[in-house]
C-alpha cells in the first residue's frame, strides 16, 4: 500500500506574473523606477 506525496511546485504561478517584463529592456524598468521615485508612488 503506497501513498505518494509528489512535490508539485505552485510557485510557477508567481513567476508567470513577471512575464510582462521578462526579456524586456532594462530601460523600461528604469523608467518605472524613476516614475516611482518622482511620484512617491504608494505614499
Amino acid at each position, binding site marked *: 500500500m503506497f501513498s*505518494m506525496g*509528489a512535490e508539485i511546485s505552485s510557485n510557477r504561478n*508567481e513567476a508567470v506574473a513577471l512575464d510582462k517584463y521578462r526579456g524586456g529592456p532594462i*530601460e523600461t*524598468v528604469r523608467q518605472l*523606477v524613476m516614475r516611482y*521615485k518622482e511620484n512617491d508612488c504608494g505614499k
Partner: protein
Amino acid sequence: MKSLVTFFFALQLTFLIIPSEFGLDKPALLDFLGDAVTVSDADLLLSAFDRGAGMINALEFLVAAVLVSEGERALKAATIFDCFDFSSKGEITYDELTILVLCFVRALGIATGMHGDVDETKIEERTAKSFAVNKIVKKADFLTYVDGAELLNLNTGTKECLFYFGIVQAAEKTSNDSPSDLTDGSQAVEIKIREDATSVAGASVIIENAVNSSDPSVSLIREGVASVAIAPPFVA
C-alpha cells in the same frame, strides 16, 4: 549583536513602512503601471507579491522586474541600488542595504519560481561580511559587491544565490520535515518532478525510479500523479 538588533529594528521598520509608503494596492498598482498592464496582469502581480495585506511591496516588484529584464548586469545592479537610494545621492544606509538584499532574495525567488522562507539572520550575516555595519554604502561599493558575488545572474547560480542568503525552499523543507514511513505501514514518497520532467512519460519514469515498485496498482497511481505533476500551472 548590535548589528542584529539594528537589523531587526530595520526590518520592523520596513514592515511598518511598507504598507503605508511602499505598498501598492490594486488601484495604485494599475495607476503606477499605466496602460502597459491590464487588470488581469495586476491581479497576477498581486497574487505573486501580496503577502496578505492586499498590496504589493513596490520595491520588491521593481527589483523583480529588473531581474527578469534584459540588460548589462552592472546597469541592472545600479537600477536596483537606485530603487533604494531615496535621496539620489549615490549612497544608502546599511539598514537600507539589508532591506535591499531582503527585497532582492524575495524578488529572485518570485522571478524564478523558487521562493522560500527568508532567513533574516543569514541575510544579516552575509551583508555584515561585506559591508561595515551602520556605515553608509556607496553605489560603487555595492556594484563591486554584486560583481564579486556574481549576483543578478538568473541563468546560472539562482539556487546557489538563494542558498547563500539562507532561503529554504518549500520542497526542501517538506522533504526534511516529513517522515519517510507512516504509522499505518504505508510509505510516503517525496518526488521533485517539475524541474526534471517535461512530459507525462518523463515524469512517470522519475516517479517509477523513486517508488521502485512493480505493483500494478502503483503503475496506475504513477500515471495519474505524472499527469498532474507536469500539467500547466493553474492561474486564477
